[in-house]
């Protein structure tokens, strides 16, 4: 089967990538486009490290065919990282020690963004539920949940 050009929006910019059939979005992002912030811990849709947002919804990029994002809006961790400083979720993960080996962190931050964009004031249970598909083996769930809760609390403050 022939390779195909997939055109989509990546972090706000129109992007083209040529892929063979069945090339996953994760492979296309990481190996073809050089966007390696998205990590792959299993390549089989189990660990959540590869979470990116497609039209705002979290997806496992390691099992999503790249062709499926034709015309869609894809957001990776690179896309939320400001030129200077950090996104509030990144800042909160850093300050709350919600990071140990760092491998699950990109996926954790993206799934947290997906949650907070839709539900700016989640309960602790809603945060835990949202993160439940993302594995951390350094046993860092408590600080991760605390980091997300802190962002939610700050948003509450901002919105008054």
């Amino acid at each position, binding site marked *: 089967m022939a390779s195909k050009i997939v055109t989509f929006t990546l972090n706000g910019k129109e992007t083209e990538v040529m892929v063979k059939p069945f090339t996953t979005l994760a492979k296309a992002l990481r190996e073809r486009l*050089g966007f390696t912030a998205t990590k792959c811990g299993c390549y089989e849709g189990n*660990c959540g490290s590869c979470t990116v947002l497609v039209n705002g919804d979290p997806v496992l990029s390691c099992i999503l065919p790249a062709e499926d994002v034709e015309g869609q809006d894809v957001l990776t961790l690179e896309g939320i990282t400001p030129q200077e400083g950090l996104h509030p979720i990144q800042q909160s993960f*850093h300050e709350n020690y919600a*990071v140990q080996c760092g*491998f699950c962190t990109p996926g954790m931050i993206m799934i947290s963004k997906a949650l907070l964009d839709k539900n700016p004031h989640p309960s602790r249970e809603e945060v835990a539920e949202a993160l439940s598909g993302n594995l951390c083996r350094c046993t860092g769930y408590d600080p991760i949940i605390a980091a997300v809760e802190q962002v939610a609390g700050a948003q509450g403050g901002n919105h008054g």
Partner: protein
Amino acid sequence: MAEQDLKVVGQSVLRRDGMSHVTGKTQYIDDILLPAMTHLKMVRSPLHHARIRSIDFSEAEKVPGFVRAFTYKDVPKNIYTILCLIGVGPDEEPVLAEQEVLFKGEQIAAIVAETEEAANEAVARVRLDLEELPPVFDVEEALKPGAPIIKPWGKNHFEYEGHHCRRIRFGDVEKAFAEADYIVEGCYEPKPIEHAPLETTGCVAKPEADGRITVYTNTQALYFSMDNTALILQVPFNKLHFVGGTVGGGFGGKVDVIVEPIAALAAMKIGRPVKYLYTRSEEFNVSSTRVAYRIYFKDGVTKDGRIIARKVISYADAGAYNRHTPYAVTKHAANITGPYMIPNVYVDAYCVYTNRVPTSAMRGFGVTSASFATEVQMDKIARTVGMDPFEIRLLNGYRNGDMRPYQKVVGDATLVEVVQAAAEMVGHPVREPYKSMHSWDRDYSPERHQPLQAEEV
């Protein structure tokens, strides 16, 4: 230095690598993309124990993108043991299997190809002719006469300075058993555990123009890996440049030297970068796990709750090869009495080989298994003599000046104070005299092996 001058002690300091982790800029092995990089995949044994009659690469070689296959004949010093660097021997693990395979998943031949897909396809087309041999999976079965012998020296256990196991002989357990009011026995079997790091084990080896090989690796033991690789490749250490420090989860699972030597050899032979990164399936199925043990306890206890004798026979399942287990068993034997003063101790701790996946280091290895068994046994003893579980620990806990069974004097006892604090934190009342005990209050007696006076420690 005055306390107010300290800038870090007593402060919460942000992680040095935190910014890099939260922005995804940290470079893990899978993030390394080099020009002309090739991919290494392993042909593995489908059987637990087998003789290798032949390996046929003819179909694999036809796969578009196939670069080269490697067997043990390509490895300058194929048989090694990781701990040779600290004097453990003899060498017994092949980089690539020679005549026999000892566990399901053992590496037999390495295939290097232009792409991961081509390497996988070529591996699938390698034809192995294996003669299945009887396997042994149980540590006690492995030591029985007539068990399949899997080691060239004719015994399925590691030799400790000529002895069949790591031994401790301290006091006279049989005499103390005769004097004891209770004999409390137990069998404990902590199981193997996979470390399951989020980043799988792997490396990228890159040949440099000056003949050196640069190896990017996620090992937890950089110099250990480099030194073993140099020995296996039979090259001077300064021909290797190991770059590491970023480990996407380790927990002891990345201290074995498995991926670096063959990747470095392949890179040297083909003159191109070689990536060898475990799949998630390999991480679970062929990487080392925590050591499984079967531990038999026999304790002699007086009716007032003092443990006066402990006899332990413990079998560690090393799996097919040493890795770090001979060392783990020594630590295990040393810690089998826990933080408790027991004046008569007898330990036989075996490092046993079976046809299981090799076991190795994991978080406190050797000691965690001993602690688990010891503490469950302490609760059992408390129930047997009708004592409070906190108080029995306070009674038997090490005091400064006590002699450990491996002939070291305790100089840093803290158990009594820790147990008292823990009891308070969980709201568990501790009565006198246990409440006033401390780490310096042992009422010394001759059978406690003439410990030092507190002032002398």
